[in-house]
């Protein structure tokens, strides 16, 4: 009764737990994960990713290729919202604020999608650049700026049409903080720096926490993400047209392809190429929603949260990661 040999690589345990959570949600099973546990696990994953990446970067020669990769990641985060916005406005006729907010999510990245991909690579024994967590952190925010720009452009002409179309007063200071100092960026970069400074001895001391526990913690977290995806579909699904659902599937493919080609162009390793594709194809569900809620209060939070958490996240976990790993040659 031995399981199919390659199953573990195609469908690693964390992904199966995502499916379990999703199925339990669909069947309305009486199962829930405490919110504090979900938040705790998400903090743990970011700290562990950061620490591991920083320690990897501290080893000799590990910084080679960092700058082009960084430039690529930041560039993709800045630019990917553009096609998203044009499509949402042009083809789906979504209102400007909501379209801008959605497009910001797809330029930015999802930490857990990254974590799941990194886990798959580890299982497959595919190496990757140590600096990838820094790329992950760097890609969180540029897309937010593009989204805000997209929301503002073109509203200049309509200021005369009255109070309803005017942008609400924006607390610029608060927004800047939200954009630059959002939780994931601070945690990832902070842990990355600490991991770098602590180096090999620090890594060894923290390994039981950051490395040995990682797959198990990811399983629990993806269980909750499966439950959350269904919860969001139920609460916010009515707001999603079929067009939007299609967008939530196609956009990760466009983003992922862009990341894949770019990473191959700058000569990243197989693992690096796969991760860059995964990052570009993923959509934020922590930092960007929080920033958009403050900056674009008239955008429909139900739509962008649901699209990101309940459509694109599952698609990336189930289809995106295996696809990019395969195409990268893993």
């Amino acid at each position, binding site marked *: 009764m031995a399981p199919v040999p390659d199953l573990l690589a195609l469908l690693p345990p964390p992904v199966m737990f995502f499916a379990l959570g999703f199925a339990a949600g669909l069947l309305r099973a009486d199962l829930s994960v405490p*919110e504090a546990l*979900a*938040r705790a696990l*998400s903090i743990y994953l970011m700290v562990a990713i950061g620490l591991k990446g920083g320690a990897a970067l501290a080893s000799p020669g590990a910084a080679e290729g960092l700058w082009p990769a960084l430039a690529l990641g930041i560039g993709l985060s800045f630019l990917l919202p553009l096609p998203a916005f044009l499509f949402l406005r042009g083809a789906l006729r979504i209102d400007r604020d909501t379209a801008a907010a959605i497009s910001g999510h797809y330029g930015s990245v999802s930490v857990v999608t990254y974590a799941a991909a990194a886990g798959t690579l580890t299982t497959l024994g595919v190496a990757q650049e140590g600096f990838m967590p820094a790329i992950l952190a760097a890609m969180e925010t540029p897309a937010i700026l593009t989204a805000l720009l997209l929301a503002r452009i073109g509203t200049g002409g309509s200021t005369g049409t009255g109070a309803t179309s005017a942008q*609400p007063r924006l607390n610029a200071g608060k927004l800047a903080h939200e954009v630059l100092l959002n939780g994931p960026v601070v945690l990832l970069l902070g842990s990355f720096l600490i991991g770098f400074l602590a180096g090999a001895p620090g890594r060894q001391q923290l390994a039981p926490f950051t490395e040995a526990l990682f797959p198990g913690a990811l399983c629990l977290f993806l269980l909750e993400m499966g439950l*959350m995806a269904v*919860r*969001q579909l*139920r*609460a*916010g699904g*009515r*707001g999603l047209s079929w067009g939007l659902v299609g967008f939530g599937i196609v956009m990760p493919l466009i983003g992922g392809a862009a990341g894949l080609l770019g990473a191959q162009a700058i000569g990243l390793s197989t693992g690096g190429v796969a991760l860059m594709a995964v990052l570009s194809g993923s959509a934020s*569900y*922590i*930092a*960007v*929603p*929080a920033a*958009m*809620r*403050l900056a674009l*209060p*008239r955008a429909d*939070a*139900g739509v962008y*949260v649901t699209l990101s*958490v309940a459509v694109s996240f599952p698609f990336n976990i189930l289809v995106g990661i295996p696809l990019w790993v395969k195409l990268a040659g893993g």
Partner: protein
Amino acid sequence: MHNRKRIEIVVERVRAEEVTSLLDRLGATGWTILPVLAGRGHQGVRQGGDLSGVLDNVVILCITSEAVTARVMEASDDLLGARPAIVSITDCTVLRADHF
């Protein structure tokens, strides 16, 4: 036993600070914020617990004078503009008048 107003506001957690600083500015001497598990309104069901926290609501409770209440009523529509909160007002009595 002194007459006061009890203002109760349901609002998004991310906007709670805007509301409480409005209350502060308008002269309220205090307020209390309570957590919300779930709710329904014109925008449909709202269930907290997503990781970004943007779908969480809170209840803000403020016991204050008639004068402050009147100012809040005027101002709230303005401030809450884009995403209106649910505001209800009840008569109440309090023990120590000087406290409110």
